């Protein structure tokens, strides 16, 4: 697994940049257009959460290769307050903000592999993995 880029997430402009990097990575793994759109959208959700709820963070983009197949991986980490009840947060429509509450659940449905680890008081880490097809 090789690190391609890391993007510091502080402002909303950083989300646009994270999306751009996510798109470039999907081009690198020769992903289909639909897969690219899905991955980019999932990254957008997770990056925005890190800024809105996690006091900002960093998202790293990696190229993973398993049995000759290239995959894209994004890991978003913040040192915010963390999530008390991850299952609740993943539920569609759950939001402590004034938004749709579909970001986490949606991101999970958009990628091939989704992992969230959150420790109340110390932060949240979300990993998104996507293959080319």
């Amino acid at each position, binding site marked *: 697994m090789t690190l391609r880029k890391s993007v510091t997430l502080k402002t909303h402009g950083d989300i646009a940049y994270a999306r751009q990097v996510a798109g470039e990575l999907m081009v690198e793994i020769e992903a289909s257009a639909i897969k690219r759109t899905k991955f980019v*959208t999932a990254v*957008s959700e997770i990056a*925005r959460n890190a800024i809105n709820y996690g006091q900002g963070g960093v998202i790293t983009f990696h190229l993973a290769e398993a049995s000759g197949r290239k995959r894209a991986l994004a890991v978003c980490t913040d040192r915010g307050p963390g999530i008390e009840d991850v299952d609740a947060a993943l539920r*569609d429509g759950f939001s402590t903000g004034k938004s*749709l509450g*579909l970001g986490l659940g949606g991101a999970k449905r958009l990628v091939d592999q989704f992992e969230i680890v959150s420790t109340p008081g110390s932060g949240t880490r979300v990993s998104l993995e996507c293959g080319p097809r």
Partner: protein
Amino acid sequence: MPNKNTMAAILSTDFDRVLSGWLKAQTKEGVKRADLVSAEESKEQSRDLLSAIADALPDAAVDSELDLTETVWDPIRDVLETITENRTQRGVSTTEMGWFIGSLKQPLFEILHTELADKPTEFMREMWNSTRLIDQISLHAIESLVEKREATIERQRAEMTEVSAPVVKIWDRIVTVPLIGTLDSFRAQTVMENILDAIVQWEAEVAIIDITGVSTVDTLVAQHLLKTAAAVRLMGAECVICGISPKIAQTVVNLGVELPNITTRVDLESGLAYAFDRVGVTVARG
């Protein structure tokens, strides 16, 4: 000490000495930038980089065959990426970045000098090998820093291409607005206000929002569209959203976003056909 890779041997036996020597040299050369990077961070970054070097060295070619792009150096490039990202954010200059790594020569040369005091030929060769390695790492870091700066400019450009949304009256009682770029920020609010103003100004009954130029529709964009449609409806008009590509449609469905009571059409043409129908305009082919 084996001839082949003296540096590897030094780092495996004298790691802590090299590290503390390096940190001291950083302070002396004034490249520590304690104002920008905390002492712990500096120490952590230096240790990470030195460990990566120590790990790679035994298997790497450090003579004229040295090639930092080889996989054996992957971990070093990873550590450098993290360090430069961190330092770019803090506003560290390229010179400071170069010297931060360059000052590693000081403790290394000192040890080489002690170890190879009576072997001038070897000493020269090792000096040259370690100079080449450290310079290459340093150049790589500088390049990466410059790349990051360019990325920052790119980032700002990405921000600037956020929606510019001129609302145009294209027919009696019909207005359109093509959205281009991203719909991230407060600008979405402006777009909504523009549409509502145009509806009042031109007594429009249909507002066509063309999102062909919006590359990502995430839940925030969807929420803005929902809000806009609701506000347009409150004004007694109707919103038609067109230009939803198949991949965006699929993504929106995956997200679980529902667009109830919103008329959607594939492209501007069919959106327009719908609007004509709504306001009672018949289009005849001549």
